[in-house]
């Protein structure tokens, strides 16, 4: 999936891809200790488009939201249905427009379009349903996950998206722009006598990540956003590595 992060402090927009393995469940957001909210996404695979040399594709086929406070509620979302389990279990088809409100939780499904989940009034996620009428072999019905309101999430929030909510990411320029995927090109590696144009990089914590400018379509292509793209599965941009974000099951709420 494509990740887009809007860094609130610096107003930068950063993007990256996480290809992942089909069947893996990725931790997207976790703030289990404070707000009690965890979001995980399970990947499904699809073959690469014919004739291309790209890798196989992965999509989110299931996204789960666990809200622990004041009592534990589970929301399991697939392109076909939404299962709400807060004391009692309820299955809601994604093909109908449905709104459910309890004291602490609000769910609004716009038929075949999206699901908005509001937790305690201060946390809001939007999940888009992507359904294909005539899917190509490399397409699968899948989901998109958007953070609409993160006020209620604490500074300790982590996960592939969650870690950037309170992060201060700065843009800097590094000399040289010949970096290739998998390598962190710097002036030193190219030799001192060669003068190269500078290349953009992001300063994340104590790490520097070279980036390039890209455009991303979001909200089912309704909007286009310019962002700084970090290659190589966001290596060095994210804390730790890919495997640190793979969790054991859909409702895993383990902390970072």
């Amino acid at each position, binding site marked *: *999936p*494509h*990740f*887009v*992060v*809007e860094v609130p402090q610096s107003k930068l*927009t950063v993007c990256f891809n*996480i290809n992942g393995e089909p069947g893996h469940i990725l931790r997207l957001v976790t703030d289990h200790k404070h707000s009690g909210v965890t979001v995980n*996404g399970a990947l499904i695979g*699809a073959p690469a488009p014919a004739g291309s040399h790209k890798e196989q*594709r*992965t*999509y*989110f086929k299931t996204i789960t939201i666990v809200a622990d406070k004041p009592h534990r509620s589970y929301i399991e979302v697939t392109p076909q*249905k939404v299962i709400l389990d807060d*004391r*009692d*279990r*309820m*299955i*809601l*088809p994604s*093909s*109908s*427009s*449905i*709104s*459910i*409100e*309890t*004291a602490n939780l609000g769910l*609004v*499904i*716009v*038929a075949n*379009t*999206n699901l908005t989940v509001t937790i305690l009034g201060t946390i809001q996620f*939007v999940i*888009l349903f*992507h359904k294909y009428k005539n899917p190509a072999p*490399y*397409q699968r019905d*899948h*989901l*998109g*996950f*958007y*953070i*609409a*309101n*993160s006020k209620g999430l604490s500074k300790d929030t982590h996960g592939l*998206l969650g870690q*950037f*909510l309170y992060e201060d990411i700065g843009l800097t320029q590094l000399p040289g722009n010949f970096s290739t995927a998998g390598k962190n090109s710097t002036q030193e590696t190219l030799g001192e006598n060669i003068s190269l144009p500078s290349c953009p990089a992001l300063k994340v914590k104590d790490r520097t990540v070279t980036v390039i400018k890209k455009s991303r*379509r*979001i*909200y089912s292509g*309704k*909007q286009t*956003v310019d962002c700084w793209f970090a290659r190589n599965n966001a290596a060095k941009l994210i804390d730790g590595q890919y495997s640190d974000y793979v969790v054991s099951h859909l409702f895993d709420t383990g902390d970072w």
Partner: protein
Amino acid sequence: RIARQVKTLLTKEIKPHIQELSVQTTIISRYAFTAVSCSMLNRHSAATQGVFQFHIPTAAYISNFTMIVGGRVFPSQVKAKEKKMKKGGGENSGKKNKNTPEQSEGEMEVFRMEVTIPGRNRAVFLLTYEELLQRRLGHYEHVTSVRPMQLVSRLSVGVTVVEHSRITYLEVLPLRNGKTPSSKGNVKADGKAGPPASTVVRQNDTFCKITFTPNIAQQAKIATNGMLGEFVVHYDVERETGTGIGDIQVLDGHFVHYFAPKDLPVVPKNVVFVIDTSASMVGTKIRQTKEALFTIMRELRPNDHFNFVTFSNRIRVWQPGKLVPVTPNNIRDAKKFIYMISPTGGTDINGGIQAGSALLSDYLSSKEESHHNSVSLIIFLTDGRPTVGAVQSPVIIGNTKTAVQEKFCLFTIGMGDDVDYRLLERMSLENCGTMRRIPEDADASVMLKGFYDEIGTPLLSDIRVEYSEDAVEYITQNLFTNYFNGSELIVAGKLTNHSPDSLHVQVTASNSERSIVLEKDVSIHEREQETERRLAEAEVGANVNGYVERLWGYLSVKDGLKGRLRSQMSAEWENYTQHATNLSLTYNFLTPLTQMIVEKPQVLANGSLAQTQKEAEATEAPPPAESSNQLSKDDNSQTPQSLHRNQHPKSISAVSKATSGGSKFTKKPVTLSKTSADGD
């Protein structure tokens, strides 16, 4: 081949011989059209009285009756009844209405026509009736009465089911014949009783045709005095997974909306059982009641609260002043209480209801906060008329309404022949409940448990179904107090001439602590095309093509009759009466507000037919006078989900408030955070 013994019997018959009886039903999306054809032959040279008698489901409306006697056609005509008494013109003393029991046998009513058949001549009786099948306990039930009172050379019963959704369950029950419900059915390999012999079922996904054609020898084997019993078909259809908006069908400017969501969590309930322990209950009745209560107690859910009240001359409350939670200890104590019940004395219906209502009212008012999301109900059971305390029906009804105060629903059950069913019906109808009859010889234990099963699992409360204002006019009941598991809510409506292509449907309801809103835009044109296509595929014939409009008419009449029964003001009552009468006439329904005028042949002494004379046949005996304080025979239309308590009479013809403008689901341009994980 006719058996010799049967042949002898036939020749000894003096009454006209039924040569052929055909009962053909076509059910299209729960709406059942039944056509009965009976051919009767007078073998003798002298004119003889022929009696055509047919049991019709209480909920059905006759839509046509025609006789052909001696080759001449005698059609009938449905006309409005003349007003005999004005509203409030009398008081029902609660005495037995002599007409009712003769004409009503539990869930069936008898249509009877006597006619003189000239010698060596034939009479053909053609009767049609229509009925909307209610979903109960997770299936629809269609009942055909096969009681020709004699052996019939050509007897055929056919039931054709045409549904939009896949038929998920179909069962033909053994012939139901009162005391021995299953003894005469075929016994299948698994030991269960199956459909009666000579039943053939043809079925595909959305269509099935069942025929039952017992020959005369088979009839002789299974029938007692030509009373084969009820031919019962159960079926159910597939529903969309989860909480969908339901199925909407459009045809000829009308629509019908079937709403029966599944996979909903059960709403906790507060239930008070008010049980008659008067002397007449002694013996089988109390034993079977106890059996049912023991079973019901086992099925109460952990979040439920309950209590028991018994009434005779004396009112006894098991746990005074409270409702208790369902715990093993409480169940054990309650069983002891039930076990110790000993019938004696008179019947204080008013006292029982007052005690039960007080329990629930106090409980709800004291624990408003924690129980506002539960469903509260009284299950009231009696086998007789009030003999102690308040005995006047209007007084009891008034007191009940005051005690209930629209806070909970009252479900009533009558056992046997001595019950004032009109009183029970009125009590339940006015308090968002339903009434059920348990015939004298029936197994009360099974029926009481069955009724509890219908209402024991509430899934939604305060359901409101609305449609876009600009698309719809004249919708039927769209507010429902409760939706129970296994049932179905049905709303029908008339589309405006200038309906847009899209019908916006919104359902709001509560489920325990959740409030739920379901919305959908339905393409009228597409739905109409689909409905027409399915009808064409089913090849069901032209007579049922307008089923959506007739279903709408049927439900509108039922609504009108219920509204009339509940109306407090004279003008209101008059409006309902007029509305229901007009609709009955439009759709040719024989209802409590209409009468059927049948031309009958007069046979001269020489056996030939004379000029006809008109005769009014009150096949559905109306109440002699009706007022807001009186009981009426307007019945048969209740569903387990029952009526909304505060429905205003205007809602008969009122269009629901616009929803499209106030929709929660309007697709606004998304202006959310870009922080996301999406795509491939």
